[in-house]
């Protein structure tokens, strides 16, 4: 191997390692847990204050809104566990009873605090293989 190639490989390695290290350190700051309601709620204490994406379904009829404000309170459940979430701000069009949601925020003793713009309701996209589309596939005999 010529010195030229080994030099090139060495510099690529150094730059690569540096970038990789940088990537991982910044990632640690920005990363958030992605959790299901039933994974968190059995022992909520250990999750208090951690950045989290919480996945679940809005409990039917649980959405409450304080009049003259954008303050929402609703329940999210998955499996047998339910958590109360509070949020202030605009909700997406798809946010409604029974919607599948991902909430970004932190768990507090009083419930799940959703960050600003932290409500993502699953967009019923053109690719939605929901129950209907799933049944649209031929049944195997």
């Amino acid at each position, binding site marked *: 191997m010529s010195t030229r190639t080994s030099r090139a490989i060495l510099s690529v390695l150094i730059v690569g390692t540096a970038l990789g290290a940088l990537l991982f350190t910044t990632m640690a700051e920005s990363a958030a847990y992605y959790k299901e309601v039933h994974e968190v709620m059995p022992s909520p204490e250990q999750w208090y204050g951690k950045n989290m994406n919480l996945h679940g379904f809005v409990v039917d009829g649980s959405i409450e809104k304080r009049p003259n404000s954008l303050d929402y309170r609703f329940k999210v459940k998955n499996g047998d566990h339910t958590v109360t979430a509070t949020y202030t701000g605009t909700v997406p069009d*798809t946010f409604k009873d029974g919607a599948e949601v991902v909430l970004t925020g932190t768990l507090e003793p009083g419930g799940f605090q959703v960050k600003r713009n932290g409500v993502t309701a699953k967009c019923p996209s053109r690719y939605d293989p929901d129950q209907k589309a799933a049944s649209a596939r031929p049944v195997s005999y």
Partner: protein
Amino acid sequence: MASLGSFLLLAAFVIASGAFAASFAGARRRHNALILGGLGLFHVVTAIMLVASAIMVHAFVTGDFTIRYVQHYSNSAQPLFYKLASYWGGLDGSIMFWVTLLSAFGSVAVHVNRERYRLLVPWVVATIAVVEMFFLFLMVIHNNPFSTFLATIHADGEGLNPLLQNYYMAIHPPMLYIGFVGMTIPFAFGIAALASGQLDDSWLRAVRRWTMVPWLFLTVGLTLGAMWAYEELGWGGYWGWDPVENAGLLPWFTATAFLHSVMVQERRGMLKVWNISLVIVTFFLTIFGTFMTRSGVVQSVHAFGEDRELALMFTAFMIFTLAVSFGLVIYRMPLLRSRNELDSWASREAAFLANNWVLLFAAFFVLFATMFPTLSEAIRGERLTVAGPFFNKWMTPVGFVLLFLTGVGPLLAWRKSSIANMQTQFMWPALAALAVGGGMVALGVPLWASGVCFALCAWVTTTVLQEFIRGAFVRKSATGTDVLTAFIGLFTRSRRRYAGYIVHLGIVLIFLGFAGEGLNGKLQEEVGLKPGQNVVVGPYQVLFNALKVTQDPQKQMITADVTVTREGQPFARMYPARWYFVGREGEPTTEVALRRGFAHDLHLVLANFEVGSQEVHLQITINPLVNWVWFGVSVMVLGTIIALLPERAFAFATAPVPSSSVPTALILVIALALGGARVAAQHVDQPQTVILVPKTQLEKDLQGHLVCMCGGCGRKKIGECTCPMAADMRKELAGHVAGGRSRDEIVQLFIKKWGSQEVLTEPIDRGFNRLAWLLPYGVGLGGIVLVGGVAMRWSRRRGNGTTPEAPAAVAAPSALQDRLDDELRELD
């Protein structure tokens, strides 16, 4: 019809396998009849896919709700346009649409190149046929779009999701698909070159053109998606780093890298392995993007649900692709030796290399961050996610380095730049960047990221201008014409280089738009207002007048009536709204009220309302410089079209293009672009306009029957649209009615004036509707004729074994000439 469709898909799969087998065997054994047979079968697949698509379109247009797919994504009340768009509204249909596009694209590519690259063509056919087989297999086994209900009968369909009933969304997927599908062609040529060992630079020429076309469509497709997000989703932004968006961006990065590095190979014979790898990786990323978004591997708000079986099939195909491709690369390594070595880091090839690394890093980073949740779950058993801000934090410096290199590359000479040379080249751009940067500091613009971005924009712009000016003057003294002629002459002489600079200018404009994100002027506020209350946001005072509830047959509309004043002057009357489509009340759509401007957009969203108390919550966003993104993309498109124009990118333009036609074409394109801009700019919301009550029933009737032709209001009826164009049309209509003309006469007058029935809300019952119904039959018939024609030609060739040689012998010199011509034109 549905069973015919299913049968055709099966037939297409079988014939595609035949095409693969014949081409593969023919290429290996140099057996002409087999090669021609494979080619014929390949075109037959295209014909069959066209017929199958015609059947699907027919099912949508006629509303054949026995087909599950039609029932799920369409209904009888949908306008014709969205019935057609429903074809690619779901997973099964989009795969079918994908195969149709791929086979059509492949047929054209093979047909165009069949003589120039005779040795490559059978391998190209074999490669594309394998890709077709994979997707056809998916359809036949897993996602048959033609599957029908077994027992239940549905009178009507569920309709396309209201969110997708938007002009941008209807045309965005086909654009993106063409971009994705088109990347298969360069891949097929690359594999063909590897398999046949024809690794001289000639395959690159074919590949470069066929990369530029899908690259263009990918660019447009991504932009349309961003525009849709901006205008329809109502969160005030246009790019959210959603996995689906990212999937489209990944091949864009690698294709862009390839379009640059290919020049190094053409000029210096270097980077051969790198280039072929980029082509393979680009193709791989299009498949990977599809896999990522369709199989539920990555969680996304676009919600695909998990589909293990589909995921497995995709994984198998991807592993197969990678193994075969890189296996071939390793096998052909001896032929891929570099002709030259890098002479100096101060050379253009080094700049291109750096640009490639950065682009590749960008692709890698986006891929990594998108897959991070899945990766972390696999490695740590704990699902961790990263969000938009993380992407922005990383991509901002990456973008800046790219922008910086955009300004460096053109200024460096090939091989090695001398110090003196660099001084003259870099002086003006560096001065411009410093001046703008200093100005930004003086004005108090945040240095990171906007200030740096502006300085870099100045840097690149000066580079490009300097290239244009120097080039024009050199050409002026060489040819003795005036500067302007010399300037246009630059494009005839080395259109690729100068068209590339225009694309760079487009990039600069896009970055200007990005810089707006970091400016102090960007504001977003959410406020609750009662009628008569107002709020001040930035320079605007937003006064909420009233909440209106109106209805039309398709939907109920809740509209906030808002008056905006700017520094005391009346500025606009705006109507943010929410629409509730009948039958889909649970999914209201957000109708953003938008006032575009060069400096900033005012973006109003009706976030919430209470009809009882008349109270509303408005999300008010001021987005600085956004429009420069869209404007920049159109400049990029223009540049790419110029680069493609005189090349024989499409089959039929084989006649030599007289060089004088290039400026004419250029002027035409510019005129068209400007014309389009003019039309779109005509829609100005002027809600102050008083819409006079129609005097007669006929006038009222026609006001609801004619649409505003300003091009910006989404075809509102002239009785509802508030722009000046609609006012003019109403006046014209009133004149006709007063003149005592009959309804038919007036309709005819309007059609004559606007040149088509586009001016009508719905096509005339007699003529066009029948045409629309005839269209699928026509396409089907065309497909059958095509099948027949291919079959006949094919059988004739078979009958007379010597004929294939004869035309080839004639064609060879002209093909050589073409190549010579190209080589000469490339020298700049």
